[in-house]
C-alpha cells in the first residue's frame, strides 16, 4: 500500500505551458508508467514552445497561478526545427524583465522534457510544486488585481468622504 498522503495546508496552483511533441508526450509517458506526482499542475498544450507568448505567463499569474512551468523539447529536438531555440531566447529575456519588476523567479520554471522523460516530468512538476508550496500564495498579482487606481493612502477625512461618494 502507498503511504498515507500528507495533507497540505496550501495547495498551489501551477500552470504548465508545454509543447505537444516532447513534454506533453513525456507527461503522457509518466501516466502510462503510472508515476505519481502532485495534482496541482494544469497542462496547456501548445504545438511548440515557440508558440508560447510571454503574455500567457503574465496572464497565468494574473489569473491566480502560484507557479508557472514552461517546458518543451531539448535543443535540437524541436519537431518544428527551431521553435524551442526562439523560445529559449524569448524566455531568457522575459524572465529578466519579470525579475526586474519584482516577480520571484522561483515561481517560474523552464525545462526541457523529452517524450522519453516521463521521470523528468514528474521530477520537474514535483519540485516546482513543492518549491512554490513552500513559498506560499503568490499574492502580488492577486492584490494588484484588487487595487484601484489610487495607490496612495486615504488618510484625510476629506479624501475618505470623497472616496466613499465614488
Amino acid at each position, binding site marked *: 500500500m502507498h503511504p498515507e*498522503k500528507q495533507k497540505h495546508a496550501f495547495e498551489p496552483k501551477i500552470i504548465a505551458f508545454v509543447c505537444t511533441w516532447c513534454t506533453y508526450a513525456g507527461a503522457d*509517458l509518466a*501516466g502510462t508508467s503510472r508515476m505519481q506526482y502532485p495534482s496541482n499542475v*494544469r497542462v*496547456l498544450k501548445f504545438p*511548440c514552445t515557440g*508558440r508560447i507568448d510571454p503574455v500567457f505567463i503574465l*496572464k497565468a499569474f494574473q489569473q491566480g497561478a502560484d507557479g508557472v512551468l514552461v517546458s518543451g523539447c531539448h535543443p535540437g*529536438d524541436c519537431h*518544428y526545427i527551431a521553435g524551442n531555440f526562439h523560445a529559449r531566447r524569448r524566455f531568457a529575456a522575459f524572465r529578466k524583465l519579470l525579475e526586474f519588476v519584482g516577480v520571484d523567479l522561483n515561481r517560474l520554471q523552464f525545462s526541457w522534457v523529452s517524450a522519453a522523460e516521463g521521470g523528468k516530468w514528474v521530477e520537474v512538476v514535483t519540485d516546482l510544486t513543492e518549491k512554490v508550496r513552500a513559498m506560499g500564495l503568490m499574492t502580488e498579482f492577486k492584490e494588484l488585481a484588487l487595487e484601484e487606481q489610487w495607490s496612495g493612502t486615504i488618510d484625510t477625512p476629506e479624501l475618505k468622504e470623497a472616496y466613499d461618494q465614488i
Partner: protein
Amino acid sequence: MSRIGVFICHCGENISRTVDVERVAREVGQLPGVAFSTDYKYMCSDPGQNLLKKAIQEQKLSHVVVAACSPRMHERTFRKAVEAAGLNPFLCEMANIREHCSWVHEDKEEATVKAVEIVGMMVERVKKNRVLPTITVPVTKRALVIGGGIAGIQAALDIADCGHEVILVEREPSIGGHMAQLSETFPTLDCSQCIMTPKMVDVANHPKIKLYTWSEIERVEGYIGNFQVTIKRKARSVDEDKCTGCGVCMEKCPVRKIPNKFDCNLGMRPAIYVPFPQAVPNTPVIDRENCIKFKTGKCGLCQKVCGPGAVDYEQEDILIVEAVGAIVVATGFDLYTIDEKPKGSLIKGYGEFGHGKIPDVVDGMTFERLASASGPTGGKILRPSDGKEPKQIVFIQCIGSRAREKGISYCSKVCCMYTAKHTMLYHHKVHDGQAYVFFMDARTPGKSYDEFWRRSIEEEEAVYIRGMVSRLYQKGDKIVVMGSDIAVGVQVEIEADMVVLATAIQPQKGADTLAQKLGISYDKYNFYSEAHAKLRPVECATAGIYLAGACQGPKDIPDTVSQASAAAAKVMTLFSKDKLEREPIVARVKEAGCVGCFYCKKVCPYGAVEEKEIRDRQGNLIKVVAYVNPGVCGGCGTCQATCPSKSVELDGYTDEQIVAMIESL
C-alpha cells in the same frame, strides 16, 4: 450560444478507478454553454462513438469535448467520429484525464477535482474553436532513401519496383552497409555476400533508382509530399561515368598500407580504392588524406594509368537539390567500442577489459571479417597480434548492452545469435579448438533461432558459461578471462588465445545531426523514435518520414528487411494519392492588422512567410503584409508569439483559445 457536448470516458477502470466520472459529468454539465454531458465505459469503442454521434445529432451540439486519454492517442478517432456526425472535426477537443490525471494520482477527490478543471478548461477552449477547412497539398511521387545498407536497399527496391523514382544516398563509397561485411548469416548460415550482392547489383541496374554514393544529406526543407533535399556529393576524384572499374589504378597506386575500414582495419588498401571487390558502384574513390598527389602534388600515377581518363583530381564537393515526397531513413548502426570514452559522456568504455588495447580482444564484426572467405585472412581464423590460429577462443556477450553503468540499458538483440553463429564458424574452421561463451541470458526469439543456438552447444560443442566476465588481461601471449559460472557458483578462469566481444549496437555516428536536419526525434542513445511503439512502428512523428532498420533500434536482418518493406509500403500508400490532406493547423495573417515588420518571416523555421503587396483599385501600393503559405507552414506558431500586433494567428491554437483556457483556471 454554443451547445457543447461533453463525454467523459471511464476507459474501463483506467479513469473511473481514480476519477469520479459521474461527478465530473455532473459538474461539467453545469458550465455555461454545455448542453449535454455524459459518461461512458469506453468512449473510443464503437458504441461509444455511436453515442457521441447520436448526441451530436439529437442534441444539436455545436462543439464536443471528449474527456478520456491523451489526444495523442485518440484525438484522430474522435475528430473522425465528430466529422461523421456532420460537425467540423476541429470543433472537437480532448481533455486528457487519463495520462495526466487518473494514472498519476491516487487520491480520488484530488483527481476528480483536477479532472473537472481539465474538462472545464477544454470546454472554454472549444467554445473558441473555429471551423477549419482541410488543406490539400500536392505529393511529389519520388522518394529519398538515406542509407544504402540492407534496409535502404530493400526499401529502395520495393519503392522503385512499384514504379516510383527513388534517390538512394549512401555516405560510404559503396552501398552494402554492414551486411556486406558479414561472413555467414544466422540461422541458416548462408553466405551474407551471396545473398547481398545480387540486391546491390539490382539497385545499380534499376532504372528508377538514382544512386548517390559517397554523398551525404546536407539540408532538408519542406514537408510531407514536398521535401527539398540538398545532397552533398563528396568529391570522389574519379568520374563515375567514365570509370570502367578495371582496377588498374588500384594496382598501381604506390600507397598500399592504409588500413581498410571495411575489413575492420585488418586488411590494407591503396589510396585509390573500392572498399571491397563487389562494391557498387565499382568506381574507386581517392582517399585524399593519404594520397601522395593530394599531399605533395607529386605522383599522379592513377591518372596516368587510367585508360578512360576517369581520374580527376580537380573534382569538388557539389550540392544538388532533389525534390521528393517521402523520406525513408535507414542509416543503420555502428558498433560500441570498449575504448576509453571522453569524460562525462553518457556511454562508458571497459577499462576492465583493457580499453581495447589488448590486440587479440576483438569485436564481433572483426570476427566476421576473419571468418569471411573474402576477408583479409581468406576465411582463416587468425588472431591479429601474431597471425596464429587461436585454440581457445572466448566469446563474451552483452558488452555495452544491458549495462546501465556503462551507459546502455537496452539489449542489442542480435549478439546472442551472432555469437552462437561465431562459435559454429569457429568450430567448422578450427577443429581442434574450443569455443567458450560467457553470457547472461541467451535471447533467441525468432524463427529457428533457439534451435540454432542450441545447435551451437549440442552439436558444435561450444561451452556456454552463464556469468559475466569481470576482467581481461594479457598474460604472455594469452588473455586471462576471469569469469564465473553462476550455475555452479564458482569462479572460472580461462586462458584464451583470443577474445571476441559481442559489443552493443549503437546508432550510426552523426545520427543526431541527421535527425535535426530531418526534424525527427530520437532517444537518448540517438535511436530514431517511431511515432508509436506498437501501432506506428515505421513512421516518424514527422509526417512523410519513415524508418527502416537498426537506426530505429537494434535489429537483425529479417527484421530489418521486414521494416524496410513496411516503410516502402508506407511510402507507396502516400504516393497512391495525387494530393494529400493535411491538418489545417497553419498560421494565417490578418492583413488588416499587419504592418509588415516581418518578424514572422525572420523566425519562421520553414520559410513559409512571403511578402504580399496590398494595392488599391488603381494599383497603388497601400502596404506590404505577410502571407503564410499554408502548404509550407509547419504549424509551430513561433510567428504568432513573435508578432507584436498578433496579426498572424495559428489556427487551432489562437490566442482566444489559449486565453480562454488560462482564464478558466
